[in-house]
């Protein structure tokens, strides 16, 4: 008869947040769809930034007013609004991939207090997003400015607000990822969560745009994506945008509320 030959294991095996972080890091590294989401975010930021810069360089602003309102930083960072779906999807997939096949039960039986898993996933989403998209945003900015310099439309990184907009782009994408994670943990289904992300990031601002007159800006600037995007603008327009850090702060608040709801849902009740 075959015998098992499995040695005994007697070392202490307490769960703590640092160990759950390490576990989620291993999962992130070994989940191909996470790498694809991050690669997509990077590609969208760099490719769209360069393409749109080339387009604007070919059709430069005409007239003093147009030149004054031309925002070369926004042009080179135009890929951010597309990349937010990629990082949002990263957040969604990191949690819904575990609910899709019952893996979440294995995970939560190993971490029965449950919430360390959510916090560790949040850290992975935010950390990985900043690490990948900050260099991408910098590359998009530098390449875009180099394209725009043909018509002397470019601005240097040292200009007031410019470095903040580049850094803010990566922070905005990281918080978008957290929103995706929270919605994924709430809905436990990739399809539903990704649809909700599109609604939140794209449909809601469009609907707000249909509102009459000043209502559009007054309400629109408090929407999650509009609020968060303020930090990516060098000169946010007070009529339609919050100030950069207030906007990012509000976006973080939305993400925190969603994560709090996700935590309540995960901690109580059944882990299916």
């Amino acid at each position, binding site marked *: 008869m075959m015998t098992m030959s499995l040695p005994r294991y007697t070392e202490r095996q307490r769960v703590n947040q640092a160990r759950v972080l390490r576990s989620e890091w291993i999962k992130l590294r070994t989940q191909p769809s996470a790498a694809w989401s991050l690669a997509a975010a990077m590609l969208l930021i760099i490719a769209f930034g360069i393409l749109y810069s080339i387009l604007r360089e070919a059709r430069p602003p005409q007239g003093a007013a147009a030149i004054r309102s031309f925002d070369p930083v926004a042009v080179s960072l135009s890929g951010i609004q597309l990349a937010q779906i990629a990082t949002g999807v990263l957040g969604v997939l990191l949690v819904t991939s575990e609910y899709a096949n019952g*893996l979440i039960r294995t995970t939560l039986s190993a*971490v029965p207090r449950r919430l360390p898993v959510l916090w560790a996933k949040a850290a992975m989403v935010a950390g990985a997003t900043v690490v990948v998209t900050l260099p991408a945003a910098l590359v998009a900015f530098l390449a875009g400015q180099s394209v725009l310099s043909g018509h002397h439309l470019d601005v240097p990184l040292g200009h007031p607000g410019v470095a903040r907009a580049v850094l803010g782009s990566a922070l905005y994408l990281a918080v978008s990822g957290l929103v995706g994670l929270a919605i994924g943990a709430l809905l436990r289904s990739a399809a539903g969560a990704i649809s909700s992300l599109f609604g939140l990031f794209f449909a809601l601002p469009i609907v707000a745009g249909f509102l009459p007159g000043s209502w559009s800006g007054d309400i629109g600037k408090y929407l999650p994506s509009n609020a968060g995007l303020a930090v990516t603008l060098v000169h946010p327009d007070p009529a339609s945008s919050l100030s950069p850090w207030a906007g990012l702060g509000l976006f973080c608040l939305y993400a925190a509320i969603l994560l709090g709801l996700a935590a309540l849902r995960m901690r109580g009740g059944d882990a299916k």
Partner: protein
Amino acid sequence: MIEIQALTKRYGTTTAVEDLTFTVQPGTVTGFLGPNGAGKSTTMRMILGLDEPTSGSVLVNGHAPRTHNAPLQEVGAMLDPRAVLPSRSAFNHLLALAATSGIRRSRVDEVIDAVGLRAVAGRRAGTFSLGMAQRLGIAAALLGDPATVVLDEPVNGLDVEGIRWIRALLHELAGQGKTVFVSSHLMSEIAQTATHLIVIGRGRLIADTSVAGFIASAAPPVVRVLSSDQPALAGLLRAPDVSVTPADDGALLVSGLSAGQVGAAAAAAGITVLELATEQTSLEDAFVDLTKDAVEYRAATHEEEK
């Protein structure tokens, strides 16, 4: 040790588990038997702290499951062998699980070797056959050398070699003093593996007994006899507490007498016995008898109700 006390679980208006009370002792393999839909998996999820009981309590090694500080050391489980990320390798699946409790990488190698997955450890778990997936699930359950092992249908879909391997493994684990709790919907399977039995049907406890006791309490054996004069022998044997029924092939099926008594009666009457055998009621029949009122779905009944 698993102590379950007045455990009830409802999902909306459906009652999955109702007022279950039993204890699973360490050092032995306990089978958890019931028809499909009886509430076995629900009970196991509550043992792991995954589902919240509606009422009642579960203690694993003396503690509520959600309060374990070293969960992988307390209870190792396989609920669903397909609960893996299909694109992640078996090794990385185990490595991530081990990391939650700071279990060394070398331990991951040990369990992979022990379940015989060394050659495929780097392969995507989604490409595994059911047998390989079962082994991976068992490897995960054994990572922390847990005091209690809970396996849901571990031999489901395994080949003969795999079934033998699991039986040997379960006995070895029980021999180490672990509490081993294994579910199945097949009596024959569990009878060869477990020494104690918990039987449930429709979420309720039907039996809490040793396997030997369960077999003894099952329907009594039947004696099959073929002789030179069947009608005469039948008339001879009939008595108030003996039943004699003819089988399709002309043999007589006698219950209430032993084979020896039937043979002696035939000899005394000068009837030549051509064939005489004791037929044990199959375990499967005994199980069906015991749970027939508790099977949730039965095609015939269902049709009648319509």
